[in-house]
């Protein structure tokens, strides 16, 4: 377990069972810490050094994901960075990113994504 956390917040396509999507991701690397559902948004959380494994895991469920917000937080430095993906018909494409070089809290990244994309974050 590292000091970094990955929070993946997914809006599934209409008709996709959120519980089934949650099962596909939760309790597998890297999302083995906790999971939740808020309305139709699926949230899965895990520890990991860096966001790469989380991004790779997201790519395994592109068939079910309309939009996704990945928040990566370095709990030691208290720095958050984020990526928003949207399905363009072929697969997930990155719509925006918030760089860790900006050294802001994860909560501020969450609220930026909410303002710009109306996607609910984990905290």
């Amino acid at each position, binding site marked *: 377990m590292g000091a970094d956390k990955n929070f993946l917040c997914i809006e599934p396509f209409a008709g996709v069972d959120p519980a089934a999507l949650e099962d596909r991701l939760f309790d597998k690397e890297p999302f083995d810490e906790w999971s939740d559902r808020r309305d139709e948004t699926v949230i899965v959380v895990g520890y990991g050094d860096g966001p790469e494994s989380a991004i790779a895991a997201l790519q395994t469920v592109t068939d079910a994901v309309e939009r996704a917000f990945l928040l990566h937080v370095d709990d030691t430095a208290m720095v958050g960075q984020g990526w928003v993906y949207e399905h363009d018909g072929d697969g997930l494409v990155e719509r925006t990113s918030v760089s860790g070089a900006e050294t802001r809290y994860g909560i501020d990244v969450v609220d930026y994504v909410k*303002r710009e994309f109306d996607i609910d974050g984990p905290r």
Partner: protein
Amino acid sequence: MDPDETLTALRGDDRERRRQAARSLWKTSRSEPTRLEENIETLRAATEDEDPLVRGHAVATLGETLFGVSGHHEPVPELDAVLARLTDADEVVRQTVTGLLWNREWWLSVGTGDDPPVTDEQRRLAAVGLVNCLDDAVFLTRKRASEELRPSLVVDHPDPERATAVVAAALADGDAGLRSNAAELLAEIAEREPSLLDPHVERLRRTMEDDDAVRSEAAAGLANVLDRFPELAAPVAAQVIESDSAYAPTDAWYSPWQRQRMETLGTVLAADGAFEGSEKALSVLKSSLADRNAKVRMASATALGRVAASDPGIVEPAVPALRERLSDFHEWTRRAAAGALAVALDPDDAEPQLVTLIESVETTDEPPDPWLALADSHPEYVTERLRKLREETPDLAYNTRVSIAATMERNPAAVHPILEDCVTDLSGDDEDRRNGAAWLLGEVILECPVEGRQYEAAVRAAVDRPEDFDEYPHRKLRKALDELNDDD
């Protein structure tokens, strides 16, 4: 967008360009804070833009910029504009401001004794805004508000009764964490202004009885109003006593949860020492004096001190256990026990060393460490306490070793017998006692080399037997020997 254009665009008539500018400013605000600090008024004006996205980005940028300015020594008037957005018409703007208050040094000290420069208007805006957010339609905003609201802000709210009612209504929230925050807030409000809780006592009592997640916080709140609702003493104490097994001793939440239990029992017994179940409540406090967690022992001793201050006779069954805590390895448990005994004991009946302890407690703002308080007048008593401690815990932690060294500085006669025991243990068969002796002897010699010189030969002999010690205690002995040699 070009950096030089953004601030100009933010003041323009084109909404889409204002949005673009606000977005761009936020995305680079942390890496370009100086430029923003020079244009605070432009940002402040943008927090009142007709467009909620512009307002949201502007208040986020303004808040991060202002909170990022270190060393607030004077009030920051522009923070009014940030706090005012807590009552914004747009839910996402409100959510943004609750996020801005999270874990900011400025906000963390508001409402505490270390208040930063905060104006009365800012305090009012924060109180009104956060109470408003506690009732928000958006869960995340409610949750954050429940974490950020301070009891002092509720008590000083322009309408404290209404504000408390909003907090009480949060006891029905669907989220257990939020309900827990609300119950804890009510308990803290009741400590400051008990009458504010009166209209909500019945609701809190139902919460205590029905809501697994928050019953201990609810009990803590009700404990603060027993003077007006004495019939609650028995059910509150019963709830606390019955809730013993919520966390395992190794769980991170064990200590704060148990300490709250002890504090609540102490409050109840201090208010009424004769309710049905009071003997059981005292018994729980007494047995918690032997808890494996030092802070729980400290909380129990502190609670017993409060009960004794109300009626010393109630605490009499716990006095022997409190005396045992004078040997505790944890300094603040020792102090709490000293404080409790000072109130519980009758000086006319107590042994001479405890009379001295009572007198020393009465002359200080907080109870002293009994080892230091008694080292001059009753060194043999202190030696006895230290010997008992070493019997129970041969391997003492760093802070305890430092306390013993401080006692040595106060009166070497109290500690030399312990160091002689350590010398014996250095050659003994028990590995734990050898290592513990090495740690303690080494630590005291490093702090008190003059007094420690008489042990040089024993230390040197131990250093020559590295196979008899673990690496770090052996290293401590080597450092002590070096200290003695440097002093030559």
